[in-house]
């Protein structure tokens, strides 16, 4: 379970987060929805202990992101917005490297890597150097790398950006599967349809504050709107940054 409480964060004079709070439950897919520059990535980076908040905090399975960052990282599988892989390592080696850094034993690493290679249909390219990978192949490696230590909580920052239709479908399948297994999945997106189709809970964020949260239906009803998109537009107060 992920709980974010009153996060504040500024970069110089830019106030990126102005008190963001929400929770993401186990066994549910929570979508962080907002236009570009709303503060989605900053929120997720702070959660992943990459950034330190100016005020506020958060908990992952009860561990404080400020006082127990290593415990938090152990319980998180993070797919950052920029998810590069090491070009001179094979896909499998990329995954194993992260398994080792998470402190897994050699046997477990091999077993988990094999599972993920099968699950994400990577067999064809997993033993090739990552240098020549397509974007979809790279993303699969990055996802496998984030999941190698079987984290309870999975954080995905705009995971479908740049993916083709088939890859997007496969990724959605995987995310649903993680939910079935009881994981807490938190993903960010600026694509309305994606969030509407996939998420159990939605947190709408704009200009550094949460403007609405609940199930898609709740948000629609509360905003008195026919579609989630209309609710979104009325929630953020404008149509800026929409796709």
């Amino acid at each position, binding site marked *: 379970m992920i709980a974010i409480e009153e996060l504040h964060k500024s970069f110089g004079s830019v106030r990126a987060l102005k008190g963001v709070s929400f929770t993401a439950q186990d066994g549910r897919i929570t979508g962080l929805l907002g236009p570009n520059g709303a503060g989605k990535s900053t929120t997720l*980076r702070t959660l*992943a*202990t*990459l*950034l*330190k908040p100016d005020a506020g905090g958060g908990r992952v399975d009860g561990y404080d992101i400020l006082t127990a960052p*290593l*415990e938090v*990282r*152990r319980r*998180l599988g*993070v*797919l*950052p*917005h*920029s*998810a*590069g*892989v*090491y*070009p*001179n*390592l094979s896909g499998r*080696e990329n995954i194993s*490297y*992260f398994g*080792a*850094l*998470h*402190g897994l034993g050699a046997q477990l690493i091999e077993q988990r890597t094999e599972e993920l290679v099968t699950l994400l249909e990577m067999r064809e390219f997993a033993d090739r*150097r990552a240098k020549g990978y397509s974007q979809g192949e790279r993303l699969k490696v*990055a996802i496998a*790398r*984030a999941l190698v230590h079987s984290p309870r909580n999975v954080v995905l920052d705009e995971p479908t950006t740049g993916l083709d239709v088939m890859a997007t479908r496969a990724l959605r399948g995987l995310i649903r599967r993680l939910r079935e297994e009881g994981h807490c999945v938190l993903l960010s997106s600026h694509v309305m349809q994606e969030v509407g189709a996939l998420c159990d809970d939605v947190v709408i964020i704009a200009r550094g504050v949460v403007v609405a949260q609940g199930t898609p239906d709740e948000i629609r009803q509360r905003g008195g709107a026919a579609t989630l998109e209309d609710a979104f537009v009325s929630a953020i107060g404008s149509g800026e940054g929409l796709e």
Partner: protein
Amino acid sequence: MRALLIVWRKELIENFRDRRTLVSALLFGPLFGPFMFAVLIGLLLDKTVTESDQKVELAIAGSAHAPNLVRFLEDHDVAVTRSELDVERARASIRYSTHRLVLLIPEEYPKRLQSGLPAPLKLVSDASDNQTGKYAARIRLLLGVYAGQLGSSRLLARGVSPDVMQPIVVDDIDVSTPAGRALLVLGMMTYFILFAMLMGGLYLAIDATAGERERGSLEPLLTVPVPRETLIYGKVLAACCYMLVSLAVTLIAFEIGLAFVPLEALGMTANFDTVVALKVFLVAAPFVLLGAALMTVVASFTRSYREAQSYLTVVLLVPTLPILFAGLYSLKPSTWLMAIPSLSQHLLMTNLLRDEPLEPLHVLVSVVATLAAGLAMTWIAGRLYQREAILG
């Protein structure tokens, strides 16, 4: 500690597979120095040899008129070719490069010599040709010596001491060669060694920060449950290993290359053998940590691979500054100078290359001071990784 070794191992493997890293670290860096060095020494020695040992070619017309003079010249390393040219044809032969120098001995030479009158000689040369100028000067010098000898014997024959004709004796004391030149060359050699060593870790240092960031692999890496400084220490350690290999390859290349160069002519130890190479390795090795950490620190401030590359090229010049300083002020090894990294390595390596004994205290101070600076710089690199700006 385990995580540190995991990072270290991965960096070793990944960079070993990167052709650019390998070529620059283990090929270009280590071989460039010895190659340049061999060429430069070759040129230096060549010049020295040309100036003193090589025979001067001289065409002599009318050699029959002065057999003693010709023999004297031949005894003094002049390659004499006998020919029958007059002034006009001598000029033409110089112009068309058939000959470089022509000495014309006229018919009246022996007669005038016998009667104690100045005997005329004609030396034809092209003074605008640098090389010929030097040869002509040597011939003129030899002719002067010969004339001096003749003059002395004439005075002796008349019962006058030749000393009368020598009111002043100048003793030329030339201190510039070969030790002076050797100092310059030695400075270059130690710099090449340090340069090659830094080249060995250059791409790993760039990769650690700017490279990871540009590829987008830095952010995922920082989400693993390992303290950030541990990650950077692993990377610095991997860079150190490449630098040590680079250093070893450089020294092997020097050992092989210098086996063909007469080093003693430059005031260096005659045999740069395995023992000397090993000692140089041990003396230079402590600089590895400082170099790797310094490059990592500089690279961590850059935003892209290219930017890191251009900044680090400047870092490659840093070790030259103390060496330059040492050369300018002819610094002699002293205990406090040993506290300055790169300068202390330069001075100790110079000692070794000159086959001079090493002061144990100097070695100790150099090793301790350089390692301490390296550890401090590594710590700084670790601290820099704590900054949020490292994400870019």
